[in-house]
């Protein structure tokens, strides 16, 4: 066998109280697309951070092309030909695309020459991007392109991609995969981290599965079912979310010609959205990030009230009502951003539970707060949604993203809303927790609540929705039954081809 491009042997890294990587070994050959699978906390990011020189291993060795490879800092890793596209984009909002790319390069050329290179690479890999734009104005998909092009310009031998497709449309995913396949054919190895097992099955040549810091298995994804891989990941049998038989009930929420101006210069205005939501159903709303998801959630939750007559809850006009009044009558919402929007990072879980639960859970009495009751409420959320934390007194900031997500979703679910609007319910949550959250949403629907689930994850929407609609530049396509809808049709809905749908219906 030829020498692998990168060979890790017995890498170990321990943090106080937890062994993040325990004797991890794996080989990546040139041109190989290698998947790294594992739940949150399985040690994937620690492992790639060691390869990228951000973290030093406690024990074990790395070899690049047979020679010892010990990057002391990312600069050294980049010089050795390792590029990394981060999950949480490491971009600078106030700077231009070209400046951002220059920052990630060794020996960056002058900005003018760099702009020409960016344009050339973006065209040859089918990733359109203008070098002079300010990154703060870009959509999530475009931001990812900035990161990818930043790596490609350095002609890496190994490209590490951390959850790259979560913000893309199916068509964009196709483009990305074409790019990655082209790179792989040119001899670039790709280390691909993802929760989405179907993607790994289409793209990757080989997969290494991590659990609790240890390698628990390897497989060839094309020959393994997604279910088997998922079970290797979590180490137990997964329960697929199921739901009892559904009957569409009364109309709970009516949007008639809902309009809202853009909240700021980077926002999207909502344009003439009309639909009905019935008790017991889940309406899935897809769309590329930045097409009005946040604005729609704000309009429905009451953060940004709309004009009278645009929004009805049962028979009540609730357009001008604020979030508190809407909560009181049974319309609850959970926004996408956990830190700072759904939860106050520096406050305890009890305090965060009080913040949205005060009215519906009777946590206050003529203006006085009933803290013991709030603590009990937080404890119930923690127990029921399996939130891993030291207790209700822990600060929201101290929870991992997935655990905090379980908490903020659970907090709303336990308040038994009649209409529940949620944006990205399982963003950054591991497979088993995501399944639990989806199950909770399905259970709510079978108990008669009406749900709107806004998500970037189409698999998730297909799994739980009764009807599907897409947001595109602030417009909502007419909802259609989710049963039997194809990926191509979804792509067209997300791309804004409204009339195509009639032809498909």
């Amino acid at each position, binding site marked *: 066998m030829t020498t692998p491009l990168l060979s890790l042997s017995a890498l170990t890294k321990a943090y106080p109280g937890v062994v993040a990587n325990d004797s991890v070994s794996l080989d990546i050959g040139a041109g190989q697309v290698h998947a790294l699978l594992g739940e949150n906390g399985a040690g994937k990011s620690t492992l790639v951070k060691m390869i990228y020189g951000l973290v030093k291993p406690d024990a074990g060795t790395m070899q690049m092309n047979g020679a010892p490879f010990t990057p002391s800092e990312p600069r050294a890793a980049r010089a050795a030909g390792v590029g990394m596209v981060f999950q949480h984009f*490491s971009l600078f909002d106030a700077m231009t695309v070209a400046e951002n790319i220059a920052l990630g390069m060794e020996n960056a050329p002058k900005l003018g020459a760099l702009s020409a290179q960016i344009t050339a690479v973006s065209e040859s890999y089918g990733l359109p991007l203008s070098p002079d734009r300010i990154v703060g104005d870009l959509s999530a998909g475009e931001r990812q392109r900035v990161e990818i092009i930043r790596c490609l310009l350095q002609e890496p031998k190994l490209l590490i991609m951390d959850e790259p497709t979560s913000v893309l449309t199916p068509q964009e995913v196709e483009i990305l995969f074409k790019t990655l396949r082209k790179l792989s054919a040119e001899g670039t190895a790709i280390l691909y981290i993802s929760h989405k097992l179907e993607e790994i099955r289409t793209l990757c040549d080989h997969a290494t599965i991590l659990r609790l810091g240890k390698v628990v298995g390897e497989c060839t994804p094309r020959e393994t079912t997604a279910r088997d891989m998922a079970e290797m990941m979590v180490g137990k049998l997964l329960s697929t979310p199921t739901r009892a038989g559904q009957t569409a009930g009364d109309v709970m929420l009516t949007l008639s010609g809902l309009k809202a101006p853009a909240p700021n210069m980077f926002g999207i205005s909502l344009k003439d959205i009309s639909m009905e939501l019935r008790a017991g159903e889940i309406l899935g709303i897809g769309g590329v990030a930045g097409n009005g998801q946040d604005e729609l959630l704000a309009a429905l939750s009451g953060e940004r009230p709309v004009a009278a007559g645009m929004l009805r809850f049962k028979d009540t006009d609730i357009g001008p009502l604020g979030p508190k009044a809407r909560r009181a009558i049974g319309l609850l919402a959970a926004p996408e951003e956990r830190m700072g929007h759904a939860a106050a990072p520096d406050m305890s879980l009890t305090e965060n539970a009080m913040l949205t639960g005060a009215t519906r859970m009777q946590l206050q009495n003529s203006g006085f707060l009933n803290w013991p009751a709030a603590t009990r409420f937080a404890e119930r959320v923690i127990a029921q949604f399996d939130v891993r934390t030291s207790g209700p007194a822990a600060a929201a900031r101290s929870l991992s993203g997935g655990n905090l997500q379980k908490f903020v979703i659970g907090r709303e679910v336990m308040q038994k809303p009649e209409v529940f609007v949620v944006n990205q319910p399982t963003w950054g949550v591991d497979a088993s927790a995501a399944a639990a959250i989806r199950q909770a949403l399905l259970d709510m629907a079978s108990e008669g609540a009406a749900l709107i689930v806004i998500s970037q994850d189409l698999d998730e929407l297909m799994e739980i929705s009764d009807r599907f609609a897409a947001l595109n530049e602030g417009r909502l396509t007419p909802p259609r039954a989710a049963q039997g809808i194809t990926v191509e049709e979804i792509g067209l809905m997300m791309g804004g081809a409204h009339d195509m749908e009639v032809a498909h219906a």
Partner: protein
Amino acid sequence: MDLSAINPVLFIAGFFVAATPLIFAAIGELVVEKTGVLNLGVEGMMITGAICGFAVAVETESPLLGFAAAALGGALLSTLFAFLTQVMLANQVASGLALTLFGLGFSALLGQSYAGMKPPRLEDVDFGPLGDIPVIGPVFFSHDIIVYLGLGIVIAVWAVLKFSRAGLILRAVGENHDAAHALGFKVKRVRALAIMFGGACAGVGGAYISLIRVPQWTEGMTAGIGWIALALVVFASWRAFRVLLGAYLFGGLVQLQLNLQGAGVAIPVEYLAMSPYVITIVVLVFLSRSRSAAPGSLGRIFHASS
């Protein structure tokens, strides 16, 4: 009242002298804030620079050595701030205020024996025939080296921030320290160096007051210039040339109110004395109404664990 007593040429030439301490302090603070650190200790570093510069200039009889000592003194004091905020992760606002209080007290202690002394004079730069041009000569070509140095530093800071890779990294650290860390830049090192640069600049600015503008040593003689410098950076939207503009405006107004006082204008002295502060801030507030340009990580503590 006799406005004819005001010599317009000397009056305009005085702009530069009055503005120079502010230019140094503000441009240093601008660099510090561009890296995402808010150092409220400018006043303290200025007064420390003022006494260090004064003492060394008197002892060595060399004003230039005095300015070098002032830069060193300001930088040393700022190192304390860098240690507190970057190593001990202390709160920047509290540390900065402490630095100002410490600087004011410490400089008074150091300056005990220097009160009432006269420092050696720093000669003006000799531009030869340029200095003999009527009006333009006295206005632009009759100053000491430090005035030109201040102008040079502003241009250099602007060019470095805009065109050089070092400037790009510096802005990146201030914009998003987590992302900069992920790319492998040494956030704390960049910040510590910027803080020391800011300290050195503030020190020189302070020494310019004690060695040239006044020139003598009195306690608390910086009289709030450090605070104006802080405000100037914010209202100049963190742009080097706006800082320069604001400093000249302030310097001009100081000059004007002194001249008006001298000419015996019938406005109470207190109003005249406060006018430069008020007018400078009002003008800059109007200039900075557009989108906030504050560095994204300004004032936030960086810890590499996240």
